[in-house]
């Protein structure tokens, strides 16, 4: 059996733990740079605030409906997530952290357990220890545990946040209730193609023949079908896999139409990517730099461009990556455009210690110790003390976070005050 534990409205729930006045109130959390709504409490959902709503358009609506709007506080969410995952490890040795707010637990050898009780135990321990409400779905396969979780979430009164699919009768009922697009791994395109075949629910999908699915789709969809039938085909991925690409993409705090500001931003994003690369001991083969104007300003001229730069050898040197990114940005830059957003994506990642050495070209050996020294200093002094010459020294991470809550668990100056 597998359990899927999912934190309810995770970001909003984290905020509520340290600011309980927000309990039972509508709360919305904004994306990086206070762009659009990415998480909200049930109360805000009831008011029909849409996900992805750009806040500048919905400000009035939020005010009128008393929705508390907050910037995203990733240091807080990251810490709360780590706590939740650590607690989950007490319930099973086999756990796959699926995202910041959900994890699969394999319950092998738990056959004599009362799964419903076990799920309740998981829920109440996480709630008591961290203050985060969760839902638990338990079923014979990962895909079904996702379905069970959705049921637990949808019917809190009937299920108390825990739902177990442990019979064929329950499985069929659950699949008939689940619209196809809500099934784990069914994307928009697949849904459209299956809808053309007359599939509306997860149950309809399982009624197709194995052969037809294999012929028209791929092994992935067939595995999913088997999973929904109750046959485990998707295993737990419990090794921490390094990311396949790393991106730092941000909106600027205002629009820029001069190259100097853009160079500074792109360099800063490149520096951040290079740091993340070194943190996971990877090097990249290439980078993609993107630049775009403000798409919300329909009246001014639009320009979106991206450029790929391939390195002759994999690198994680801040110097090389930043130089390449700035050059790419320079070559894309057009005069007269008001730019609003840029990004650096590093991809083609390989482990730093076992990549193939180039025959003629290799990295300047001075870079590696320099990077180690920079990382060390920047960790020790907590901020980006060492920067490149083309970065602005006064400018720190220029995220717009006007409604940021304190870093309650990661900064001693931000802890709660009690009278």
């Amino acid at each position, binding site marked *: 059996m597998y359990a899927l534990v999912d934190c309810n409205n995770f970001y909003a729930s984290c905020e509520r733990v340290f600011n309980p006045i927000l309990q039972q109130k509508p709360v919305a959390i904004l994306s990086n740079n206070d762009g659009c709504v990415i998480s909200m409490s049930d109360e805000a959902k009831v008011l029909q605030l849409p996900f992805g709503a750009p806040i500048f358009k919905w400000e009035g609506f939020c005010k009128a409906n008393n929705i508390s709007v907050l910037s995203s506080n*990733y240091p807080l969410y990251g810490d709360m997530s780590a*706590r939740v995952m650590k*607690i989950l490890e007490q319930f099973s040795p086999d756990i796959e952290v699926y995202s910041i707010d959900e994890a699969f637990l394999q319950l092998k050898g738990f056959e004599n357990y009362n799964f419903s009780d076990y799920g309740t135990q998981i829920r109440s321990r996480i709630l008591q220890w961290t203050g985060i409400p969760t839902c638990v779905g338990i079923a014979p396969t990962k895909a079904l545990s996702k379905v069970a979780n959705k049921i637990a979430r949808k019917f809190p009164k009937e299920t108390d946040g825990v739902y177990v699919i442990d019979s064929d009768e329950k499985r069929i009922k659950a699949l008939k209730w689940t619209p196809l697009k809500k099934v784990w791994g069914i994307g928009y395109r697949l849904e459209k193609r299956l809808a053309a075949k007359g599939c509306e629910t997860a149950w309809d999908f399982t009624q197709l023949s194995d052969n037809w699915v294999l012929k028209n789709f791929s092994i992935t969809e067939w595995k999913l079908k088997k999973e929904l039938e109750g046959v485990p085909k998707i295993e737990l991925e419990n090794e921490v896999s390094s*990311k396949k690409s790393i991106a730092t993409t941000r909106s600027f705090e205002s629009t820029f139409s001069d190259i100097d500001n853009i160079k500074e931003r792109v360099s800063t994003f490149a520096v951040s990517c290079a740091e993340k690369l070194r943190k996971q001991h990877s090097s990249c083969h290439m980078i993609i730099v993107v630049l775009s104007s403000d798409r919300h300003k329909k009246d001014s001229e639009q320009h979106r461009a991206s450029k790929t730069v391939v390195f002759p050898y994999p690198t994680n040197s801040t110097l090389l990556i930043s130089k390449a990114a700035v050059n790419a940005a320079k070559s894309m830059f057009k005069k007269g455009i008001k730019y609003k957003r840029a990004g650096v994506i590093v991809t083609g990642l390989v482990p730093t210690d076992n990549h193939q050495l180039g025959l003629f070209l290799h990295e300047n050996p001075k870079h590696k110790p320099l990077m180690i020294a920079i990382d060390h200093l920047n960790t020790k002094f907590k901020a980006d003390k060492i920067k490149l010459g083309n970065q602005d020294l006064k400018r720190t991470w220029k995220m717009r976070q006007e409604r940021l809550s304190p870093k309650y668990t990661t900064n001693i100056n931000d802890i*709660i*005050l*009690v*009278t």
Partner: protein
Amino acid sequence: MSTKTPKSLTFFTPKSSDSKGAVFIDTGISAGFPSPADDFRETRISLDEELITNKEATFFAKVSGQSMIGAGLDDNDLLVIDRSIEPTNNKIAVCFLDGEFTVKRLRVENDEVWLQPENPNYPIIKITEENDFIIWGIVTNVVKKL
């Protein structure tokens, strides 16, 4: 199966106290005599270990005000709060009461909950149905700067 990977997010993890003040023993493989102290080396005393029994459920708060001076909680003291401990009579708890965090001694009698300050200048508070009340966590330690 495609997995969701947040593209541009790196999550900060709190500084782990896994090191526990441990000492890296490195006498190498050089010839000569190893340090006679090596066999007797122990892990350094760690305040984290002394003050925190359940890392995942432990949070910190700062005291503001005098209401608990009798229990040794002075203004600006650091509180170690363990949310996993069952709130029972006589424990010192951080509570959320009508919009504010407060630290008081819990008095549980029959079905009644009282919040008792440890300073004669402050009144004892009876919790009623009207109150917006949460017991947030139990105070296990107080750290004070001298």
